[in-house]
C-alpha cells in the first residue's frame, strides 16, 4: 500500500501501543545540549536508572556558550556550572560530547547534520523545539521536554500520539532575492502559528526539489513556528550527496550505496494519502519580514503594516498589542525603519550558505555607524569553512563582529543580547517579546541577506533594490 515517509518511518520505530493509545516510539538518535538535560539526568539518577543507548546519544554545547572569551572557567558562573554538569553527565554515561575544544561544537541542529549523524529514516529527539530541522533529511525529528529527555535516556523511546500529515507543495520557482526563509515565513503567515498543531508537515514541490540541504533545513527548522512539531522533506539525490563522506554517514562505498538506496525508498509513494494538502506558488513569495511578536505576524517587504481598525474584533487585540510593543503605527511600511542591531546566525540561518549569502551583500560595504552587527557561525566547522573562504575578512572589513559558534542572540542566554528597546534585524526564528534578551527589545525576522542589507543601510531595505555581488565561495 502506498504510504508517506511519515508512515514508513513511524511504523518502523513503533515498539507497541501503550494503554492510553499512544505509541511507544523508538528513538534512533538522541541529541542533547546543556539547558534541557541536567534535570533529566538528575531524575534518571534519582530513580537509579542508567542510559540505555549512550552510543545513540550525542551532546554539544550551544545555548549558554559565550561567543567571545571562551576560556574556562567561563566568566558567567551559571554558564560554567551548566557546562560542567553536561561534561560530568556525559563522562559518567559514556556519551560523546562535542565540546569547545573538539573543533565540532556548535548549535545542535547544525552539528547533527554536518557530522552526518542525521540521516533519512531516523527518529530523532532532542530537548529543543527546533529539532524539526533534521526533518530536512527525511527523518522524523521532534522537540521534547526534559521529562521526555529522561524517558529517552532511560528507555531510548518516547510516548507519542501519531500525527496527521499535511503535504505543502511549493511549485514554480523563487524570484530573485527570495530565499528559503521567505518561503517558510510565508507558509507560517498563510497557515498560522497554530495551523500545524497535530500535523507533521511534508514539504515538497519543484521549489523544494531545487533547494540545497541548507535551505531545506531552514524550512524544516521553523515548522514548529507554524505549530507543527515535525517537518520533513523526502530524501533525494541532494540528500544523498550531502551525506556522502560525512563522519557518521555509512563508510565504504558499498555500505553507503546500500544506505542511499534504502533512503530513496523511504520517500512518500506517488499514491500516498495525505490528511491535508496545501499549494503555494513560488513566484508569489516576496522577501518577507516579521513586524510583530510572533512569527506569523509578517508582511511582504513591499506591503504595509496591518491596521487594527480594519480587521475582525477577534484579531484586533493581538495586532494592537504587537504594534504597541513594537512601537509601530498601523499602515506604516517596514522599509526605512531604523535598526540598531543586526544578527546573523542561529539554527535557522547560521550555516555556511547563509554566511555566503550575507557576505555577498556586505562585500566592500560598511555597516551603518549606529548599527551593532554580529555574525555567529552555527558551528565551529561552519566558522572554519567560512574562514577558509575568507568570509570572516569580508565581515570584519565591513564592521561586523566575527564570533565563536553558538545560539547567541537568538535567545540571549549568553552575553549577546539587545539593550533596552533596540530593534534587531535578525536571521533567527522567534520574535517573541523579550526573546533577544531585553524585555523591551524588538526583533524583525528576515533572511540573512536582508539582515546584511539592513546592517549596511542602517534601516530595513528591500533586498531586491540592493545591488548584490555574486555569491562568494563555491557555486551553489
Amino acid at each position, binding site marked *: 500500500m502506498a504510504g508517506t515517509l511519515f508512515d514508513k518511518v513511524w511504523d*518502523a520505530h513503533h*515498539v*507497541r501501543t*501503550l*494503554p*492510553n*493509545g*499512544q505509541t511507544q516510539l523508538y528513538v*534512533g538518535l538522541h541529541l542533547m545540549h546543556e539547558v*534541557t538535560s541536567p*534535570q533529566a539526568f*538528575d531524575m534518571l539518577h534519582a*530513580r537509579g*536508572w542508567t542510559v*540505555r*543507548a549512550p*552510543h545513540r546519544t550525542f551532546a554539544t554545547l550551544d*545555548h*549558554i556558550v559565550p561567543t567571545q572569551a571562551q576560556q574556562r572557567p567561563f566568566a558567567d558562573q*551559571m*554558564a560554567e*556550572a*551548566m557546562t560542567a554538569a553536561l561534561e560530568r553527565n556525559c563522562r559518567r554515561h559514556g556519551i560523546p560530547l562535542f565540546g569547545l575544544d573538539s573543533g565540532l561544537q556548535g548549535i545542535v541542529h547544525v552539528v547533527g547534520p554536518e557530522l552526518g549523524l542525521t540521516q533519512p529514516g*531516523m527518529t530523532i529527539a532532542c*530537548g*529543543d523545539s527546533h529539532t524539526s530541522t533534521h526533518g530536512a533529511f527525511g527523518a522524523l525529528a521532534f522537540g*521534547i*521536554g*526534559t*521529562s*521526555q529527555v529522561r*524517558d529517552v535516556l*532511560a*528507555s531510548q523511546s*518516547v510516548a507519542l500520539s501519531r500525527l496527521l500529515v499535511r503535504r505543502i507543495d511549493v511549485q514554480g520557482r523563487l524570484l530573485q532575492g527570495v530565499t528559503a526563509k521567505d518561503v517558510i515565513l510565508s507558509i507560517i503567515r498563510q497557515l498560522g*502559528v*497554530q495551523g500545524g*498543531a*497535530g500535523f507533521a508537515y511534508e514539504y515538497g514541490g519543484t521549489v523544494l526539489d531545487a533547494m540545497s540541504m541548507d535551505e531545506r533545513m531552514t524550512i524544516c527548522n521553523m515548522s514548529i513556528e507554524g*505549530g507543527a*512539531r515535525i517537518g520533513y522533506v523526502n530524501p533525494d539525490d541532494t540528500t544523498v550527496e550531502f551525506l556522502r563522506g560525512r*563522519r*557518521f554517514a*555509512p*563508510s565504504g562505498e558499498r*555500505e553507503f550505496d*546500500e*544506505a542511499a538506496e534504502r533512503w530513496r525508498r523511504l520517500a512518500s509513494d506517488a499514491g500516498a494519502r495525505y490528511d491535508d494538502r496545501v499549494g503555494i506558488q513560488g513566484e508569489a513569495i516576496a522577501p518577507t519580514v516579521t513586524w510583530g511578536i*510572533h512569527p506569523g505576524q509578517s508582511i511582504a517587504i513591499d506591503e504595509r503594516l496591518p491596521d487594527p481598525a480594519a480587521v475582525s474584533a477577534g484579531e484586533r*487585540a*493581538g495586532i494592537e*498589542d504587537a504594534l504597541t510593543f513594537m512601537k509601530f503605527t498601523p499602515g506604516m511600511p517596514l522599509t526605512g525603519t531604523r535598526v540598531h542591531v543586526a544578527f546573523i546566525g542561529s539554527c535557522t540561518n547560521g550555516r555556511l550558505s547563509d554566511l555566503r549569502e550575507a557576505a555577498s551583500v556586505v562585500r566592500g560595504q560598511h555597516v551603518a555607524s549606529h548599527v551593532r552587527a554580529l555574525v555567529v557561525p552555527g558551528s565551529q566547522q561552519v566558522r572554519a569553512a567560512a574562514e577558509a573562504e575568507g568570509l570572516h575578512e569580508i565581515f570584519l572589513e565591513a564592521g561586523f563582529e566575527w564570533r565563536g559558534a553558538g545560539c547567541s542572540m537568538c*535567545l540571549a*542566554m549568553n552575553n549577546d543580547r539587545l539593550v533596552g528597546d533596540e530593534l534587531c534585524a535578525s536571521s533567527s526564528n*522567534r520574535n*517573541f*517579546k*523579550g526573546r533577544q*534578551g531585553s*524585555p523591551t527589545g524588538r526583533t524583525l525576522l528576515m533572511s540573512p541577506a536582508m539582515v546584511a542589507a539592513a546592517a549596511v543601510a542602517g534601516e530595513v531595505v528591500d533586498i531586491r533594490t540592493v545591488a548584490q555581488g555574486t555569491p562568494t565561495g563555491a557555486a551553489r
Partner: protein
Amino acid sequence: MKIETVTGRMVVVRGADIDTDRIMPARFLKVISFEGLEAHLFADDRVEARGQGGVHPFDRPDAAGASILIAGPNFGCGSSREHAPQALRRWGIGAIVAASFAEIFAGNATAIGLVCATVSAEDLDALMAHAERDPPLQVTVDLAQLVVRSGPEWQMSIGMPSATRHALTSGEWDATELLLADYDEVSRVEARLPYLRATSRNA
C-alpha cells in the same frame, strides 16, 4: 498518582499565543534544577503591566493560592522548555483551561501531571467572566465528567485528547515506567533498524 479532579480558584491570563519565552524568559533557564523557577513566572509581562499602570494577573493579591489557570488560544507556543510548565506547577497551578495549547507544551505539562483542558471560544469568554467575579469562585476541573463546574451553579464541557485523559486518570502520566515495561520489544525494534546496524561500525 491518579488525577481525576483539580479544585481551586482561577487566575486568568488573557491573550492569544502566550509563548514559553513569556511564561519563563530564557535568562531564568540558566539553572541546573527546576527549583524556585516559580518566582520568575511571566517576569517580563509583570513588569510590562506595571509600566502601563496595570497589574499582571499573577501579581493580583487574589491570585495567590489559585490553582486553575484560564488562558487563550495556542497557550505555551514556542520553545520546548519544560521550565515553563514546571514553574506553573510549582507556583501551585494544577490545571490549565485554555482555548487551545501548543503541542509540546501540553505534552510537557501532562508528563508532570499538570492538566491541560480546552474549552470552546464562547465558553472561554464565559469562564473568564466567572473567573474575574468578586468574590472569587471555587471551581472543579473534572476529568471523569469532562466538565469544569462551580457547585450546582454552572458547568461547561472541557476537551482533552483521550490519551492525555487516560494518562492522568490512570496515574500513568509519568511515562518512564511504562516505557521500560517491555524492554525486549525495544531491543527487537532496535535490532531490525538497518541504520543501527550500519552505524554501529562507526560508533
